[in-house]
């Protein structure tokens, strides 16, 4: 490994014992998170593959199910999440430039936007219970909802809503974990743990947050925008 610049040696902040210098540690952290994101892609990939097969088999049911969802809420949440990616990117930037105040503010802004997303999601989930379209737990669609779902077959519509809950649920769990990580960054960031030479944790959490965003960018069209609704 190359010798660390003198200022890194002197500072010695956050260098774990197994590494020779901060540069090696930072490279390892970044490779580690990218590998982790690869595993996440494979994890969601299995689910997306299953979704693709059933959507192809039962397109009418998936189209009908999609039309039950409130596209405005989905679109609003997309905007909220994209905004949170911006504030996350600004947090990383603030950590790199050593602006501790901005770092904490942007992290908190990211958390607020994440919270808004989860709030909207919770409202949407609640709607599904109200409309009795929760597969396995409360599946008894009626009235207008039934009229939407019946043409594609109720059984197959239930599969659509299973994927809806499984995919957005897994995504929401990732959001909650991300919120926990952000809180941890806020606590450490307030104490001044991150410097222009040691900001890998912020960048690592940032990459994770962007990944979770990207998953939603795929989920929104796949779940909300099936078929010609307009």
């Amino acid at each position, binding site marked *: *490994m190359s010798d660390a610049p003198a200022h890194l040696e002197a500072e010695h902040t956050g260098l*774990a*014992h*197994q*590494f*020779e210098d901060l540069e*090696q540690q930072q*490279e*390892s952290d970044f*490779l*580690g998170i990218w*590998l*982790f994101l*690869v*595993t*996440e892609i*494979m*994890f*969601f*990939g*299995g*689910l997306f*593959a*299953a979704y693709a*097969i*059933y959507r192809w*088999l*039962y397109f009418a049911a998936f189209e009908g199910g999609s039309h039950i969802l409130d596209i405005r809420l989905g679109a609003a949440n997309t905007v909220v999440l994209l905004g949170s990616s911006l504030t996350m990117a600004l947090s990383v930037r603030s950590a790199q430039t050593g602006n501790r105040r901005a770092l904490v503010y942007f992290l908190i802004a990211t958390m607020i936007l994440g919270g808004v997303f989860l709030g909207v999601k919770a409202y949407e989930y609640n709607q599904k219970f109200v409309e009795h379209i929760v*597969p*396995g*737990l409360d599946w008894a669609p009626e009235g207008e909802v039934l009229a939407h779902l019946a043409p594609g*077959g109720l*059984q*197959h519509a*239930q*599969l659509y809503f*299973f994927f809806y809950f*499984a995919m957005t649920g897994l995504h929401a769990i990732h959001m909650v974990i991300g919120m926990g990580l952000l809180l941890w960054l806020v606590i450490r960031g307030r104490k001044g743990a991150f410097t222009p030479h040691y900001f890998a944790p912020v960048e690592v959490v940032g990459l994770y947050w962007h990944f979770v965003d990207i998953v939603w960018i795929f989920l929104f069209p796949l779940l909300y925008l099936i078929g010609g609704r307009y």
Partner: protein
Amino acid sequence: MSTATLEPRVHAPRNYLNADYGWKSWLFTLDHKRIALLYLVSITFFFIIGGSFAVLMRIQLVDPQGAIVQPETYNKLFTLHGVVMIFFFLIPSIPAVLGNFLVPLMVGARDLAFPKLNLLSWYIYIVGGLFTLYSAIAGGVDTGWTFYTPYSSTYSNTQVTAVAIGVFITGFSSILTGLNFIVTIHKMRAPGLTWFRMPLFLWATYATSIIMVLGTPVLAITIFLLALEHLFHVGIFSPALGGDPLLFQHLFWFYSHPAVYIMILPAMGVVSEIIACFARKRIFGYKIVAFSSVAIAVLGFLVWGHHMFVTGQSVYAGIIFSLLSFLVAIPSAIKVFNWTATLYKGSISFDAPMLYAMGFIGLFTMGGLTGLFLASLATDVHLNGTYFVVAHFHYIMVGGAVMGYLGGIHFWWPKISGRKYPNGWAALAAAIIFIGFNLTFFPQFVLGYLGMPRRYAFYPAEFQVLNVMSSAGATVLGVGYLIPLIYLFWSMRYGPIAEPNPWGATGLEWKTPSPPPTENFTEIPVVTEEAYAYAEEEAGHE
């Protein structure tokens, strides 16, 4: 737990074993060597559990009518044997024990890149193991280790959810271990240790880690869907409700076929180290052997459909999967030929690790060649679902992976424990295991060819002789496994003290004291030579 007996001698120099005492120093350790020992103790525990299920199965099959248990219980025995042995013994065996211990030592680093993640992965493994043990105690599970739907999701009323949670959780332990190894090998190699100077064990571990990182998440999501289906019956794998049970098989084997290579690749890495050391020669065709590990990892992802030739899979998919399966034989054969070529004109000594390595080559070759019968579409129709399959994968997993694991344990035991074991006993155990193994599983090839189906609690009377042979062999095999357990324990207190490099082997792990200090190396080593530079010591003999 064996932690108490690991306390070393009083006047020893400071090393990772005597650096600290007490249960906290073990359960909260971040030292990769101590975590390796935590894994060693836990996987030995699960090996004994999984082995006991096998013992009961072999007793049952002595009598054509079934000697001791009802068919329902027998179904649970083979299921739990498979689940425990695959997910809780074989997959973590060499990576989590020897890999954990050796990867940082071999790359010349002070620890893995992420020590906390490493400890976390052990705890994840234990939590997954507890779920599985709970499922065994709370009534067992009878689906077979493959959890085929819709039986597992709709019809089985056994502990499917608990065991699914156990397997799901343990998968993350495997993912984190693989991730840790890849980052460590990429970023923490000592100065001068280029990729093509790395020991082949590192190449094998690297290839294995790729599979762990890419494959295991797919198993996780599959098992997750299975658990949801079992709980809520929404129909994702249930044909009655519009679901496709073959989708489960595709997703399951997408991981579980590569998982075979998670088990065998590290053993191949171990064998490369042992063969080079005890033939005193550089591995013949080092680069090809290194690349063949990666080739097996990549090709391994493209062959899963050969488990599904007799399902509803399309004929054309079957043809392609058959062809691709044959391709995996090429890098596997390259390894066998190159090990053999390494032996040629080597100065060979038959210490215990070498006996295991030789056993590995023979048994793996048998297992690999019989795999080709199963990769051929026509013969597979006859052999699928018979004992031929059981014999084939036990030749790979027990004859291959477990032999490799035991060979590795014997090779690095002086480094791990700082003590030597009695070589005579070790050689005897290796011989008993080899004989017992063949006596157990060779008759099963014949049984399968004659048409005896697997997973039945009883069988036609004309198969009894071969079944009794197999059960007798299992007894011999059991004795063979018991002997190392005894003398390795014994050696921890009474064995002669091991010098840093008892085998005269190359490799950075032998350049530090036995057992190594907590920080591995007092000074980070600089590598100036190729791996396996045995020829230089004995120049002139070549």
